[in-house]
């Protein structure tokens, strides 16, 4: 049997180069499998052979998606594979964006089937689910064992051009494609049955989910900046040294509010980051690099805006559940509005 030649895309972590301190490394290529690439080969029962692994740091990839794309395309093209496989990225946002974007590029520009996998909260899903098959995973690597066989099975079907089942059966994110099928009962009958179930409070599955575009209407702009009260908010985890309220480094369960009245500069002696998802060296050295208090004070003094709000709000946005983040944002917004704040500068890492 002919083996399927695979090029595998990994970040620095799964590529066994290092953690956040290595997130800045530019793309590199290695022949053969690396790390989870071995597992991929094993789960395919030896049908898939990873002929090349492309590795790139998460920060480098996320900040230079457009620039690394031609490099990845060239390295993939060089070895003429049957399949391009990225990740899985689970809930890692930067990695997911890179996996989705690279898969889309390889499939569209080189015509090589591509597959990746990630968690539903990953922004990479929206970036590429319409163009490629993205298998749904849990939010951590604990799900690895379950996901690989699914990816292998789906990839095999794509390569064999076997008909692919509905998203729920195969475990991938809906691509927005409509397929004609012959149903046992006609539409009116199915609709009435569904309605009856709904009236009885029984579970039912809609045949046409209404897409929810959660966009927010832009708020009215600040009319007189010279009188406006501006607040700083960050998900970058800047907290007083020692993290007194113990904001978690990962999936934070809370947000906090700290007094900055009379403080003109955040020093590394008094503040630090509690965030577990980026290299903390720069923020710990000078926390203004994440929460720009010193520059905000200069602009306040200059009269560019009226006044800086006396507190800042902070949480850690690292694999934090979307529902929690939405709640924190809503509550912080309400509190700031009540306190007469007119505009918010929000920094994210």
């Amino acid at each position, binding site marked *: 049997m002919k083996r399927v030649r695979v090029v595998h895309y990994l970040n620095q972590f799964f590529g066994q180069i290092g953690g956040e301190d290595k997130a800045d490394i530019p793309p590199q290529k290695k022949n053969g499998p690396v790390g989870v690439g071995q597992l991929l080969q094993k789960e395919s029962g030896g049908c898939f052979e990873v002929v090349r692994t492309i590795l790139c740091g998460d920060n480098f990839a996320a900040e230079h998606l457009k620039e690394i794309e031609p490099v990845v395309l060239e390295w993939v093209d060089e070895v003429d594979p049957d399949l391009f496989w990225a990740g899985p990225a689970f809930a890692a946002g930067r990695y997911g964006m890179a996996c989705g974007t690279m898969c889309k590029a390889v499939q569209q520009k080189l015509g090589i089937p591509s597959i990746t996998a990630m968690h539903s909260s990953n922004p990479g899903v929206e970036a590429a689910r319409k163009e490629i098959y993205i298998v749904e995973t849990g939010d951590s690597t604990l799900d690895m064992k379950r996901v690989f066989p699914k990816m292998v099975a789906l990839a095999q079907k794509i390569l064999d051009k076997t008909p692919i089942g509905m998203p729920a059966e195969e475990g991938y994110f809906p691509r927005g494609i409509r397929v004609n099928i012959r149903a046992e009962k006609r539409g009116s009958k199915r609709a009435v049955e569904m309605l009856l179930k709904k009236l009885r409070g029984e579970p039912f599955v809609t045949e046409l989910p209404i897409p929810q575009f959660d966009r927010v209407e832009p708020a009215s702009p600040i009319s007189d*900046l010279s009188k406006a009260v501006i607040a700083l908010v960050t998900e970058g985890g800047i907290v007083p040294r020692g993290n007194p309220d113990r904001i978690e480094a990962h999936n934070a369960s809370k947000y906090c509010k700290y007094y900055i009245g009379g403080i003109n500069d955040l020093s590394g002696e008094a503040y630090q980051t509690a965030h577990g998802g980026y*290299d903390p060296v720069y923020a710990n050295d000078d926390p203004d690099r994440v929460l720009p208090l010193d520059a905000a004070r200069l602009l306040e003094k200059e009269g560019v805006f009226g006044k800086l709000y006396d507190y800042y709000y902070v949480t850690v946005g690292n694999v934090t559940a979307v529902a929690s983040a939405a709640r924190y944002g809503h509550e912080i917004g309400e509190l700031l509005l009540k306190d007469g704040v007119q505009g918010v500068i929000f920094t994210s890492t």
Partner: protein
Amino acid sequence: MVKEIERVGLPAVLICAIVPIAVTVGANRIVRAIAIPHPTGDPKVEKKEEIEIRENLLRKALKALCSKIEEQTVFK
């Protein structure tokens, strides 16, 4: 989070290094940051220059808060 703040009626600008993610999550006002681990700083330059960079980023962010927009906008 920034989207929810804007939803209660407060203009909010997101300073973020990965603009495509900011767009995907639905932020209305976006300013591109320096880099992921130091969005409002640059450890490679002198302190004085770094503060200037930070000041300029904030000026851009303030401009975003004062701009009337109809849709998601990346402020350059």
